[in-house]
């Protein structure tokens, strides 16, 4: 596991290009990508939407294509973040899954279409989702994390994150 831009314990000695060289060779198994917008075709947008400018595509256009499993995530689950078509395709590829603050989707490669796997609470999320997707007739609840997983998240994981993202750790875990 490696956090990009780690201030301590950086595993790379060839500068920031080493990550991409590593990925280009297929040595990275899983990568996580977010987006200002994510669409029903699995494309992400990190550049611009609704007249607003975002930072830019970073390495997404490359990583999404070369890493075997890319998991898309976006905490905000709304019609403005989950759209039919992104305004700018920063990157496209074959996602392994899409996780939001409300739901988990899998990706159907043959149909190029998401399938709803579960929701975190019992609610109808279709109204809050801008793209169309397949869904089972009975939608399961996402299993809550086990006590062991929570301990891991609130202990070692939280401390590791806090070293590089102190504001985030303060907000999520109250860590200082």
């Amino acid at each position, binding site marked *: 596991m490696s956090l990009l831009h780690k201030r301590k314990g950086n595993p790379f000695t060839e*500068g920031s*290009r080493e990550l991409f060289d590593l990925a280009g060779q297929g040595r990275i198994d899983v990568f996580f990508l977010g987006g200002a917008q994510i669409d029903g075709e699995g494309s992400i947008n990190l550049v611009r939407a609704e007249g607003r400018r975002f930072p*830019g595509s*970073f390495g997404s256009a*490359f990583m999404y294509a070369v890493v075997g499993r890319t998991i898309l995530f976006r905490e905000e689950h709304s019609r403005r973040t989950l759209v039919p078509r992104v305004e*700018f*395709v920063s990157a*496209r590829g074959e996602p392994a899954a899409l996780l939001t603050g409300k739901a988990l989707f899998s990706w159907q490669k043959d149909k190029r279409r998401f399938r709803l796997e579960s929701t975190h609470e019992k609610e109808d999320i279709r109204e809050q989702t801008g793209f169309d997707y397949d869904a089972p007739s009975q939608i399961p609840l996402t299993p809550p994390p086990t006590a062991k997983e929570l301990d891991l998240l609130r202990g070692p994981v939280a401390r590791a994150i806090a070293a590089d993202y102190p504001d985030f750790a303060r907000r999520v875990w109250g860590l200082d």
Partner: protein
Amino acid sequence: MAERPDELAALIGDGALVAMPPDYSMPAMEVIRCLIRKKSKGLRLLGVPVLGLGADLLIGAGCVAEVESSAVSLGEAGLAPRFTDAVEKNLLKVTDATCPAIHTALQATEKGVPFMPLRGVLGSDLVGNRNDWKVAENPFSENDKILLIPAISPDIALFHARWADEAGNVWVGRRRELATIAHAAVKTFVTYEELRKGDMLEDELLAPGVVSSIYVSATAQAQRGAWPLGVADLYGIDDAHLALYARLAKTREGFQRYLDDFVFTPKKNSSPASSPA
């Protein structure tokens, strides 16, 4: 030869293509403040592969005409406010890239070849927006499209380093993207924390982190010259200052106040030399 950061800044002409590292990789912040004080114009910034505070300051101060980068942001402190504002008002030409494409373009220059191929990226709108990138068939295979990225040769590489030595070498440690920029640029200007006696290339432990004097055009000492950003093992990123900047620079007036306080007339208690490590 230069001796002070402002003398390095004086060597960077208006309109120059200046390659700069990300906030986590030792930008020469003191020279950037000098460029603002000397009212540089029309600079073209190349992010290797992304840009942050230094670029936002230069953009807000009106020193920049164009940016090529994979992103411009303040990291955890959020969006780069002056960059965002300038783009939304159509005041800045931005050429969007993706990180490995910029590394590849500089590596092509390192090798003296006109272009290099890069996997992935096809399918991104980045490709259609750039008429300098080409998609070609892999000549060694069939039905295998691949992106070709032309070499980039920046006029100037600008960064900060832990050490310089009497032989004109600088030490950047594991931040090897700085070596790539130096190899690819026509001229390389470096500020440094401390001067070491002798020649670091004579020391087997230091040599792998050295950028040889072959590539270094001029150096100048600037203690805490990366502040409010960091130098590994010496001082960390000043997160509180970045948060202050992010807050102030949301408005043009706030940004001007920031320049007045920290660039034009540095406050004593916040000057690079006296802030805590």
